């Protein structure tokens, strides 16, 4: 899958997974922070996103510190998925 396409799919998955019902994929910018200021996600969302990575891409993140590095924005997530996906 191309990176651009992956990012679009990922945005859709995040919207569905986190029930961000008022958002469309184009509302999420690739470099916009997921937590705090940007999308305003919190610690529970980060746990949800770790499950998303496991279920959709077969990536298992055990160390919360690693999770924090990956779950910065769409770009960092997509990079990590491309390198580590098992499905």
């Amino acid at each position, binding site marked *: 899958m191309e990176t651009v396409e992956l990012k679009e799919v990922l945005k859709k998955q995040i919207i569905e997974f986190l029930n961000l019902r008022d958002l469309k994929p184009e509302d999420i910018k690739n470099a916009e922070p997921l937590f705090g200021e940007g999308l305003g996600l919190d610690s529970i969302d980060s746990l*949800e996103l770790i499950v998303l990575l496991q279920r959709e891409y077969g990536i298992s993140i055990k160390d919360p510190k690693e999770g924090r590095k990956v779950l910065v924005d769409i770009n960092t997530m997509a990079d990590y998925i491309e390198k580590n996906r098992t499905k």
Partner: protein
Amino acid sequence: MLYIHQSYCISPQQTFMNVDWNVLHEAMDNKLKVVEPAYENIPRNVLRRMGKSVRIGVGAAFPIINEIKNIAGIIIGTATAGKEDSFTFLKQVMDYDEGLLTPTNFVQSTSNAIAAQIGMLSANKFYNITHVHKGLAFENAMFDAAMQLKENPQHDYLLGGVDEISDDDFNLNNLAGWYKKEIVSNKDLYESNSSGSLAGEGSAMFLINDKKENAAAKVVAIKTLFTKDEEEIKQQTKELISENKIDVFISGENGDNRLQRFYNACESLLEEDIAIVHFKHLCGEYPTTTAFATFLACDILQKQSIPNIVIKKSTDKTSFGNILIYNNYQGEQHSFILISKA
């Protein structure tokens, strides 16, 4: 004394903000589901995680918490809040064989999510409690609220009753025989003469304090009983109607022919000129329907007229001072609430 100053109700009917008793929304598949507002005031990032009971609870509370600051306590009665999230989480546990799971449904699955969310949205750090005693959850919340007013006079409290229908909980109650086997229209609920009722849901929120001025109504008595004996219900009814001159009797009858004997027992004791009102064709059956009935009673007392849609037996009376609500949940839990003009 517990005075009700404001009341808001999200129900299957047009009861929120612009109350209109002239239209009857009909049940679908034996369910009367709430008409949800747009929740424009609730932050989207908070709204996305809320289950239905939390949404309708917060939604009905919002006009109150938005206007009244320094509420001294949030007191909620609910038997089903968080159940949909509980069951969604349970299915995840079983379907993924206790594997890697998402926590949101679990966090939202506790019954106190409504009171907690109202507290959070209004930054209210005071008394916060959730009563969950099934068909008496709202009555026990009201009792707690009355005690709070005695202990802390001159304070405002938020009192509410909230329940939701979820598919899974509907299935459990259906399997236990509490809903009708045949499809019944809510228009025909009281003529159905079969077991079970229609499923319902709703949220009613009240701003209460101990000030008489400008109050919409006052709660004079709350009595709860646990029995299968209709004589005990008769005895309690006699006590209440001998001590207070009742103008309107609000019956919680729900079309379940197994429970009708309790309502008949009460009605048989009423004087001829007392109006009899019923309401479960509007909101369906759920554990905290007495919150809906309390909202209805406030409406009758304020407008001094009874909406046609709820009249079972009319009266020649033109002014209404005392209203007695009697309800029975699943045969054993009974309650009386006496509400009067302030």
